[in-house]
Structures are given as C-alpha cells and as structure tokens.
C-alpha cells in the first residue's frame, strides 16, 4: 500500500492499516516503512475475526503453495524484506474500502499469505465511489 500511496490518496482514500502486534510495532512500521499510512495495532486476533478474517489452514497452504512463493518473490523484487514478525503469521489479510457512512464498498479477502488486491483495482473502486457520492 505504501508503494502506491500517492495514487490511492489522489483518488481520495484515507489509508489505514491494522497489524497484529503492539503499539510500538505499529509505530516502528509506520514510522520507517510506511509513513503514509495511519497504523493501528491489534493486540489480539479479535478485530480480524470481527471482519471475517481467519488464519490460513494447511489446505490453504497446500492449495496455494506456488502462489505463496510467487508473492514472496514479488515482495523481494519490490525491495521488501521480512523483519522479525509480530502477532500471528498465519493470519490472512483483508483489504476493504469503507465509505463515509461506514458501509463496505469493496472487500477483498486474501486467499493465501501475500495475496493482496491489485492496486489499480482499488483505484478504480475509489474512483467509482467518488462518482457516486
């Protein structure tokens, strides 16, 4: 998200990120790696569960093994490196666009570790939301 923050913010999106860990981890992440995001720490998995997110299962891992390798390679090519992980590394990610009334306008549930929506899809969704409001 940080890589494309300008495009995303240009279409009017606020960028919030929730990560599993403690406040100090959120501060470190946002301060050094993602200064364009407003970061929050989830000290338990409950906020994730509330939004329908869950940990990857062994079946998920087996089904998407090659996709996970591809996602890892892409991250490395983008210059991303893995530091000491916090929280629950099996938790799958989710990306949502929420409008000003708190209504979900876009929802993407990661199918495997490293599965994120294409940023141009997010830009299109935000543009659509802008036109309809």
């Amino acid at each position, binding site marked *: 998200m940080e890589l494309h923050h300008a495009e*995303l913010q240009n279409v*009017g*999106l*606020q*960028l*919030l990120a*929730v*990560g*599993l*860990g*403690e*406040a100090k*981890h*959120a*501060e470190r*992440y*946002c*301060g050094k790696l993602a200064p364009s*995001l407003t*970061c*929050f*720490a*989830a*000290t338990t*998995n409950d*906020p994730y*569960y*509330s*939004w*329908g*997110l*869950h940990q990857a299962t062994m079946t998920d891992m087996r089904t998407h093994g090659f996709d996970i390798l591809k996602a890892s390679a892409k991250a490395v090519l983008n210059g991303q490196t893995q530091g000491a*992980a*916090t*929280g*629950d*590394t099996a*938790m*799958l*990610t*989710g*990306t*949502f*666009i*929420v*409008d*000003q*009334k*708190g*209504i*979900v*306008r*876009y*929802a993407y*549930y990661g199918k495997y*570790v490293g599965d994120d929506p294409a940023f141009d899809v*997010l830009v299109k969704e*935000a543009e659509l*939301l802008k036109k309809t*409001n």
Partner: protein
Amino acid sequence: MPNIAGRLNIGDQAPPITVEDIHGQPLDPAQYWAKGPTLMSFLRHFG
C-alpha cells in the same frame, strides 16, 4: 474455537473494533470514516 464472523459483503456496515494507536490508546477506526472514504488494510503482522 475463535468466534469468526462471516465475510463482509458490499453494502454491509463495517463492524466496530477496538485497536490501539501508535501511542497505545484504544480506539475504533470508525471515527475515521466520517472524514472520507477509507482504505482499511488488515496486515498479517508488523515486520
């Protein structure tokens, strides 16, 4: 077993949650909705 809610669909109300800001203060990100459309990303972890 954790109590995992169903997946959110387009048109659903975003559920309230409590997280911590970088200073350790609890808050619900819902307070940001009114300021404008929001991209809410749940990361696997910080690191």
